[in-house]
């Protein structure tokens, strides 16, 4: 017989942890707060390890199922296993794991960002050919002005653009928008915290 214990247990754990941390802040219970935070850090590290194992299991399942992209799953599992064994055996400060990082992980991710730079440039150039309205024109205009003020063009610094216009765009207009976003995020964080503490929201499987 199956008892529905998952929802109430997870909800009670979430509520208990939240209320304990909040009460520790209010009453200055630094020891209790540090202990709970230590548990959270350990659980997070264990969660990361579980995530790696889940990823390996998913791709192993694809490899057994003979999926169309099973080759990529095979490469992922092999790479993961080799890196894990080498790092665990030799240590993270060894030259071998660092080689993997320097010559495999970092170039691949940097290449993706480089491709993204080309794609964004091309998409911005084609924007007005697909859509002509006020916001599209403003987007292209501000992108050009920001790039022109971010560095010298053909070795020449544009005095007004780089000294006045670009800082005004990045720090006033964009800063105003950023402040609005931050205020909204703060209000949302407070609301979400209160709802979780009052069990109005149960994002932990409740």
């Amino acid at each position, binding site marked *: 017989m199956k008892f529905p214990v998952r929802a109430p247990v997870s909800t009670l754990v979430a509520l208990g942890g939240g209320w304990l941390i909040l009460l520790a802040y209010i009453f200055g219970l630094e020891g209790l707060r540090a202990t709970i935070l230590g548990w959270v850090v350990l659980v997070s590290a264990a969660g990361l390890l579980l995530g790696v194992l889940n990823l390996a299991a998913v791709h192993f399942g694809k490899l057994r199922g003979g999926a169309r992209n099973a080759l990529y799953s095979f490469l992922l599992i092999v790479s993961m296993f080799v890196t894990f064994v080498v790092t665990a055996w030799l240590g993270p*400060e060894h030259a071998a794991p660092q080689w993997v990082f320097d010559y495999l992980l970092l170039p691949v991710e940097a290449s993706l960002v480089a491709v993204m730079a*080309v794609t964004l440039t091309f998409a911005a150039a084609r*924007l007005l050919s697909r859509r002509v309205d006020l916001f599209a024109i403003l987007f292209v205009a501000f992108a050009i002005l920001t790039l022109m003020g971010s560095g010298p063009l053909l070795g020449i610094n544009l005095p007004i653009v780089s000294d006045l216009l670009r800082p005004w765009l990045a720090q006033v207009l964009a800063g105003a928008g950023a402040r609005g976003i931050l205020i909204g995020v703060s209000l949302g964080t407070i609301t979400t915290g209160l709802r979780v503490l009052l069990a109005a929201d149960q994002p932990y499987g409740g």
Partner: protein
Amino acid sequence: MGSATNDNDLPDWLKELGPSGAGEAPAPQPADEGQPDWLSAEPPAAADSGVFGVEPEEEAVPDWLADIRQAEGRAPDEAPPVLVPPSPEPSEESPGWLEPIRTRESGSLPAEDLEAPGDFMDRIQGMKGGEAGEEDASADWLSGLGQPQPPAESGLFGEESGSLAADWLSGLQGGPAREPAAESLDWLQDVGKSIGLGAPDEAQPGAPAWLGDAEDQPPAEAAPPVPDWAAQAAEQAGQAVAEEFPGLPGEPAGTVPSWLADIAPTEGESESATSAADYKEAASEVFKIDTGELPDWLAQISPEDALPAPPEEEAPRPSPFDVAGELAPADLPDWLQAMRPVATVGPTELPEEDRSEAERVGPLAGLAGVLPAEPEIVQFGRPPSMAAGLQLNETQRGYALRLGEMVAAETAQQARPRPPLALPQRFVRAALALILILAVAVPQLLRGKYTSLPQAAGTRPPAEIQAVLDVAAGLTPEDTVLVALDYQPGLAGEVETAAAGVIDHMIIRGARLALFSTLPTGLGQAEHFMATTQRAEHPDYLRGRDYYNLGYLSGGAAGLLQLATDPRAALPVALPDGSSVWSQPALAAIFRLRDFAALLVLTDDPDSARAWVEQVQPSLVDPISGQTTPLLVVASAQAEPLLYPYWQNEPAQINGLVAGLRGGAFYEANIRELRARRYWDAYSAGLTVAVATLLVGAALGLSRNLLVRRRAGGAA
């Protein structure tokens, strides 16, 4: 006519038959039309002798009458004091219904048994009907009903109109006395022959006389004069009465009896035979309405439009007794046809073959037509399915289709015309990538310094960069700086280049570094950073002595909070010899974050920088002295707008900010030229190509889009 004129002397039943009963008496019409047959015709039979008081064919006084006279003490030729009903015929010749009359007149019945005149007439009718019972008289009048009724006989609103309705109504007013008698046809024929008019059945055999009278009512002007045969019959009756009752005063010959004159045709009955012109005029008078009070649509309708077609002028129908004319067939209206007796529809209407086919099996074997089969009713097989949908005509179906098309047009998504591309995207994209790679790679390969740094000589960098310069410049060899490397490897080129000058400045100042990361890749990221940016400039700056790699801090924001609370517990790192890293000379004095000389965060994510500000920055403020450990941020250019508000706050939550390659270039311009200077030319070339691409692409796209719109407008 030998009827008595003194009303006081008349018996009651005769008074009721006289003018006093005009209200219910038949309309005074010509004797051959308006009056019942048995009343209007020459009364050769005993049935009519009661009314006229004559017995034309009786030669001698009957015995019962003689007995009455003797009982009264009068002579046989003496006139009686009162009107004596006509002497009945011998019982073997007279109808049975006359027997009570004779009995009553002879005084054999008691006074209480004398019924009222109306009852008397009912009884007469009943007895006559009983005698006429199963004879073919009903068939005769039914055959007359079977004749179609011409439309001209229809009334204004479908009622019986004209003379016909008035006549049969007058017949009803006449009461039972107008009911036809079967035997009356015979004596009526005799009467007609005797007066030289011919028999009625010569005009229309089989038709009842009263119906013929109703259909062939002549115009009103023919009513007052008495026909000759009636006058002759009345004269003969008068002579007979005079012979029988010599003392009775007689009416002038040739005049209509007074009681008959009282039931002369009314004005309405006389108008029933008006012409078609009179009919139209009367109809227009009926619907004469003030059109000013009506709406226009109603005023446009003339009374003639609302009325049925007026009866056409037709020749007056000949009387059934008119020997010169033909007997017109009776017209039966539809409503009367529907009321025909069911008995007229019988097995005789079944097909001959159905009745003649004999049953072969079963209890009806050998019989034909007992239970006739009806193949049209008995159906074999599956019954037809009845359509449950709406029965729509063409117009309604057309409306439904139009409505469906309108709804479909509203909900349909209009395909947006895609502007044609001048060049294949793949080719343009590859060309753009090639140009960008060349623009960035060529300056790197040339290793020239073609472009000056952004800060001109003798000028100050931006304030946020200057703040970092000031903090780094204030470090001493005893200070330890906590460095967090929270950026992805993909953006390592930008962030490390921007931070290279800052770290170089700190190393120059002799500060020791404690490196860690909140990302799993942070451990390798730290070693990569030190190896690629500082090892060439500071080859003797060694790990484990000058800088420490504290590894990965898990938990995200919670890990940062734990770090702010207890850094030693958050980053428990053991050296190869087994000792704790926190036992090293550079970290031995560090128990809280504010014990570090400064915190430097290298990040490409604004959210990561926000977590540092929210979770760690408050713990950098000394609650006693109020001094704040500086929180410096080196970020990617894309995170600058979101981090700048923390720098602008008062007090500032970020004490210095270096953003992007441009910020690194500013920083190196004030210290020494390192990686930012090396990449500055390539950065400038790539930036120029990107701006040019955007300008050209925007110009081409805008012009082409406008051209397409103009063509579309022209085509429209």
